[in-house]
């Protein structure tokens, strides 16, 4: 029975001690500790949220970059294709124009050659004519040095002339 009978003295001292303990710890320990813990939890939470936001932002940027890259690649392919087409076109055009030019030049050369040939022929003809005349003159001169021969010729010519 003695065990379960509270002593007034211990009740008194426990009350005093506990109330003082509650007051001091409540004011100088629990309040700052809980506030500090709360503050830290808040800061951790905001940090986590910020990290999450940064991750999202990063992902968004990466996506954007990828899209840009894809677009750029498509554009590059398009440009390359166009360039290739253009190149082929230019080459074929150049070939064609070179061909026609060549033909034209050959034609012109042929005409020129013909012209030159004609001129040369004419020249040759003139020369031949003058040479022939000279030769003929010389021959005639030689032939008519001898009177007899002259007469003979006249006779022959006269013989040949048929009236």
């Amino acid at each position: 029975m003695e065990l379960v009978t509270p002593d007034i003295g211990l009740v008194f001292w426990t009350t005093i001690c506990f109330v003082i303990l509650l007051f001091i710890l409540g004011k100088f320990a629990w309040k700052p500790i809980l506030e500090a813990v709360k503050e830290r939890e808040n800061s951790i939470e905001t940090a986590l949220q910020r990290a999450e936001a940064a991750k999202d932002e990063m992902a968004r940027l990466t996506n954007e970059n990828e899209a840009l890259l894809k677009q750029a690649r498509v554009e590059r392919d398009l440009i390359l294709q166009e360039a290739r087409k253009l190149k082929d076109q230019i080459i074929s055009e150049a070939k064609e124009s070179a061909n026609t030019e060549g033909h034209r030049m050959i034609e012109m050369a042929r005409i020129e050659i013909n012209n030159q040939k004609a001129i040369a022929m004419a020249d040759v003809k003139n020369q031949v004519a003058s040479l022939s005349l000279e030769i003929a003159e010389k021959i005639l001169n030689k032939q008519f040095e001898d009177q007899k021969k002259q007469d003979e010729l006249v006779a022959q010519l006269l013989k040949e002339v048929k009236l």
Partner: protein
Amino acid sequence: MAVISIPAFASVQKNATNTTHKDFDPTPVIMEHIGDSHSWPFVFPLVAEKPIPLPVILYTDKGMEVFSSSKITPEGTVYAGNYYSYKLQEKKIKIVDATGKADEKATVYDFSITRNVVSMFMTITVLLIVFLSVSSTYKKRAGKAPKGLQSFLEPLILFVRDDIAIPNLGIKYVRFMPLLLTIFFFILINNLFGMIPFFPGGFNLTGNIAVTMVLSVIILLVVNLNGNKHYWKHIFMPNPWWLFPIMIPVEIVSIFSKPIALMIRLFANITAGHIVILSLISLIFIFGTLWISPVSIVFVVFMDMIELLVAFLQAYIFTLLSALFIGMAVEEHHHEVI
């Protein structure tokens, strides 16, 4: 508590060997430890047990009396104070009449600084030093990760907040956190110090009905002073009306039965643990042979481990139930909704 008791056992055994082994009676030894005393039994291991005198403070109808407990020890020594003469009888201070017999009718209120009070001063000092230093660490290391003692105590503080206060009190937990934390750590440190068998432990504070009574009266007051109109309506206006004659007395009894259950639970758990351990130690002296000591030691170590668990468990349960009772008194919604 074991070492404290050993010289006591030793002296008892010496007396016992003079007669027979069978005479050893563990009850007074255990009761001496479980209860309170006016002196601190300080032990020089294997040499002597010397009681350190503590101040005796008495309040009589004529006034206050303060003297050292060495004046009234050993038990039965009569000390003539300013107003009356006093002596210890069965560890209680009694007023002695002229013939040297205790005057049972004269009342004297004993506010002495007993062993338990000194222990309490000690544990409270420890609590204050520890938590004020931890609190200053929090200020110094604001926003940083906990370190040292702080990182050991923070999980406990967060445990009280997240697993005891918030689930039971909801959004109003902030107001009651200081009380719950103080109760939790007060019970815990006293349970743990009580397990140390020598200085600074060797007492049984949380296993003392006076201490648990004060704690539960505080809970009773906090619960009923914070009770809102739903709480009181639940007590005085039960549904349906014809249950009034039964329900109102039941509810009024329940107001008091809850803290009483708290008081008894803590007291009984801690006291029982101490009694079991001391009884196991006593086995050595009851059998009067050293050969039984390995058995005792194995059992005592086992019990110590259980007591370590109980020390945490009882601190937790007391705090949890306090939070629960406060939560029931302050919750906003109607009970019918539940």
